[in-house]
Every structure is written in structure tokens, then in C-alpha cells.
């Protein structure tokens, strides 16, 4: 190689059990490289990744040991569907773990139900006849059937229409709630990240810029702008108002909260104006 560069450089972070963890960074920030390290597709030149009590970066670790712990759902995962039926497709991963047939079937049923599809209705259908949103669910079920301790979803809603987008996120939340496992969500949609995640990691040029709660992370407007990331749309709106003198909280992350505070602010201003008018009239 004429020039070598570091795709990931001194990255350290921790994720606590049961967290929904967001990763944000613009295209080329090192996000994908990081994900590929997390599921053992790439090995680090130095450093360790420890899941529970297992170091998945150990040279002699079996791939199946990693697969059992980390499930990675790639972007547009429906492109990877290949079996004749939904049930067979979802069974592919567990079968490769060498599980007993009964165990495989149980997991397949559970995974299909977990992604919000009716097992009896869908098990015998061809994955290629399904709608875009349904295909994606089947692909995600294939990873869930591995029962990973951490489920990573890379842009799980890319290219979906608004309804399918909401449905897939609701499904992700439901799976997270029911399994209680770590879920890592990679997304360009800052509103989704702000709403769903317990903690968020910002990556740029292969380095961790910051890690914190959505409120902490999105309060660092300047740093985010420097690495080419936007605030959630509602936060952009409330920040624009703050700059124009509105006395509202910094880093408002939901539309409900924005409406509440803006209304309060306008009413306070109105009362103030009315009082001024009265005072003038009194004179």
C-alpha cells in the first residue's frame, strides 16, 4: 500500500447491559469499519472487543462464538434473502450453529413472531413475494434467531416509506424490550436516534468524538456541525427560535416538548404585553 491510513484510531467505549445504543457519523466516518470489527468480520491491529466475558478479538476464537454473541443486520438486509420459504431463510443461521432440529424450529417461530409477522401465515411463503417492509423483517428475524447478546442494526429503515419506517422501528423497540439485550442502532436519522437511544456515540475520521445521552450529544452543536452531522429537525427549529430570543430550554428533542415550551413562552410574552398596555392606559 502506498499510503496507509487508520480507519479506526484508538476507539474505546462501553455499552451497559440492556441499553439501546446509537452510533452516528457521516458516510466514511469509520462507522461501517467499526461494525465489521464488532461482529468479527475484521480483526483489529491492536486493541480488544469484549462481549460479556469473552474477548472476540482473540486469534483462536471460533466464528460461531462471535455469531452467538453479536448479530449484525446489514443495510438493505433483504438483498441477502435466498431460501424458498421464510421459515427456511430464518433457520439458516441457527442451523449453522449446529443446533438440534427442535431447537432450530422453536427459534425460527420465536424470531418470526418477534419481528411482528404471524408464523403460520408466513412460514411457507416465498420471501421474494413479500412487501419491502416484510422482507426486511424476515431478514432481521434471521439474525434474531441466532439469539445474539447484542443486536446491531445498520440503517434498518433506509429506503422504506414513512409507514414501514415507523413499523420497523416499533418492531426494533419491541424486540429490544422483550429480549432485554443490547441493541446498537446505526442511523442517519437524528430524530430516531434522539427518541430511541439511551446513549449515543459520535464517530468521525475513525475516532470517537463523544459518547453520551442524546441530550448531552445534541447539545454539542458546534462539534456535530464540524463533523458534518445535523441536529434532529425539531432541535434545529427550537435552536433557531432560541437564537431569536425565545426563552426555551436548550436541546429540545421531541415535538411535544417543543410545543409545550413555545406555547408557554408565547403566553408569558403576551401577558407581559397586555400588562404593559394596561399600564399605559392607566396613565
Amino acid at each position, binding site marked *: 500500500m502506498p499510503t496507509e491510513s487508520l480507519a479506526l484510531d484508538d476507539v474505546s467505549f462501553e455499552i451497559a447491559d440492556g441499553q439501546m445504543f446509537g452510533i452516528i457519523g457521516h458516510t466514511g466516518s469509520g462507522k461501517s469499519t467499526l461494525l465489521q470489527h464488532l461482529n468479527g468480520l475484521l480483526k483489529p491491529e491492536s486493541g480488544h472487543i469484549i462481549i460479556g466475558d469473552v474477548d472476540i478479538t482473540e486469534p483462536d476464537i471460533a466464528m460461531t462464538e462471535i455469531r452467538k454473541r453479536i448479530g449484525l443486520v446489514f443495510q438493505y438486509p433483504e438483498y441477502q434473502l435466498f431460501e424458498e420459504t421464510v421459515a427456511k431463510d430464518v433457520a439458516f443461521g441457527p442451523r449453522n450453529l449446529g443446533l438440534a432440529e427442535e431447537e432450530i424450529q422453536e427459534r425460527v417461530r420465536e424470531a418470526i413472531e418477534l419481528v411482528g409477522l404471524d408464523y403460520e401465515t408466513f412460514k411457507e411463503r416465498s420471501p421474494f413475494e413479500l412487501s419491502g417492509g416484510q422482507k426486511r423483517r424476515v431478514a432481521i428475524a434471521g439474525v434474531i434467531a441466532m439469539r445474539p447478546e447484542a443486536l446491531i442494526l445498520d440503517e434498518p429503515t433506509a429506503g422504506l*416509506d*414513512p409507514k414501514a419506517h415507523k413499523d420497523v422501528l416499533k418492531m426494533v423497540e419491541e424486540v429490544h424490550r422483550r429480549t432485554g439485550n443490547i441493541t446498537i442502532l446505526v442511523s442517519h436519522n437524528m430524530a430516531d436516534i434522539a427518541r430511541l437511544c439511551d446513549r449515543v456515540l459520535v464517530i468521525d475520521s475513525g475516532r470517537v468524538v463523544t459518547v453520551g445521552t442524546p441530550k448531552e450529544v445534541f447539545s454539542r452543536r458546534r462539534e456535530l456541525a464540524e463533523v458534518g452531522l445535523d441536529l434532529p429537525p425539531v432541535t434545529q427549529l427550537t435552536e433557531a427560535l432560541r437564537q431569536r430570543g425565545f426563552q426555551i430550554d436548550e436541546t429540545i428533542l421531541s*415535538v411535544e416538548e417543543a410545543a409545550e415550551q413555545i406555547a408557554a413562552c408565547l403566553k408569558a410574552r403576551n401577558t407581559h404585553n397586555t400588562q404593559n398596555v394596561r399600564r399605559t392606559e392607566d396613565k
Partner: protein
Amino acid sequence: MEPIIKIENLVFAYAKGEGREAVRAVDGVSLAIERGSFTAILGKNGSGKSTLAKNLNGLLLPTEGVIYVNGYDTADDEHIWDVRQSAGMVFQNPDNQLVSAIVEDDVAFGPENLGIEPAEIRRRVDKALQDVNMGAYKNKPPHLLSGGQKQRVAIAGVVAMKPSCIIFDEPTAMLDPKGRSEIMSIIKELHAEGITVILITHFMEEAVEAERVIIMHDGRVFMDGTPQEVFSRQEKVLSVNLDIPLAVELADMLRERGIAVPENIIKTEEMVEYLCQYE
């Protein structure tokens, strides 16, 4: 003036596998698209919007009905190239649209096929790449570009054909936020230069930039009006599984709290202006 595109009772049906009944992806659509206008077409997956788009430049031909583009019937074989040159198309996935190993060759591909003389091709390619802010990349191989840059090259390839109308079929769906805003500003510039724009999108924030919004549902036109007219009828928009823009959602919540936000406010900037002027 004669509309650039005239659709008369379009039906497009296809067989979903052997022996099955034909599905009407587009089912009785009549529309006129004015010259120089900017129309956004929305609809959930399967609503018929992409099928409609592909009928507009003869990629698909009507099962019933007629479409005129610049006065040419799209089903008339003799004029298919007049149709395609009048109405260019940009698709979702930039990787599927680039054919050459060098950016400027890719942009020249269309005009070359039209048999245009080399000096004119040179002028068109330079102008088109300049229009999409990719002049500096003209000698680069497309595979080294980002998704947004590739999409800009694909647009330049269409612009170099000098079409009167460009149909964008979810051009930003696979791009990151930066790529998305780059493409949107180019679309707005092309429109400002007089090109008729038809934008198919899932993003409501893009649709509010248009002059006209058409919502497709079950192969039919479900709503058709200015963005203000369409998005102020939230219930109806939500009923066909679409979203509403942030400003409309916020306006509604503010009204519940006694702030009488006018219904024509649908963009974030408009909302900020309104609130700052509120008394």
C-alpha cells in the same frame, strides 16, 4: 401554453405471475404537468407512483390511455427518442446509472448517442458538470465518489441531454443527509433555470419545496394541490400512511395549546418566522 406532460386516463396493469389476475398498478390517472413547474409525487410503497413515473418517458407503456410528452405520444415508436430526450429520468440507486470509467465520459454518454457533434458535447458536458458542482471531478472514476457525488454525476448525464423535464424517482433515498441536501439544492436550481421537475419522494421535507403535491394511493390520484392545501389536511395525509412535515405537526400541537397558527405554514423556516412575529 400546452402542458409539457399530458396524461389521459392512464391504466397500467401487469400480471403478477402466470395465471393470476392482472394488477392495476396505475388505475385511471389523468393529469397535466405545466411547463416549468415543480411537482412532488408522494405515496406509500406500492401506491403506483414509480410505475406512473416510468410511464412518463416511455420506459413502460400504458395498458390503457395515452401520455403525451412535449406533444409526442409515448407509445409512438417513431418518437420514443423525442420522448426520452424531452423527459429525462434519475433513479434511486446511483450505482445502477453510471456506465463509464471516467466521470466526464459518463456525462457524455447520452449526448453521444444522440449523434451530437463533439464540440457541442464538450460544451454540454462542462456545463452539466458545473450545474451539479462536479466540475472538479470530471477526470475521476465514478467508483471513488460518494453516493451523493455519484447521484450528481447521474443528474449531469441527464442534464447534458437538455431535457425540458426531469423525473427524479426517489433520488435521495439511498443518500446520507449531506448527500440528500446537495441533491435537493441542485433540483431547486434546475427548476429555477426553467426545467420542469417531477420529484418522487418519501421525504415530506422535500415535498414542501415543490409548487404542487400529488399523493398517489392504490394506483389513483388521492390528493392534488399546493403543499399548503395538501399538508393542511393532516388526517387525510396520515390515512394513506404518509408523514406530515415537522412544522405541520408542531402547528397542530400549538393550536391545541391556544396558539392559532395559520394553516399555510408548512416549512420550518415559515414556522420560525411566524413564531418570532407572534403577538
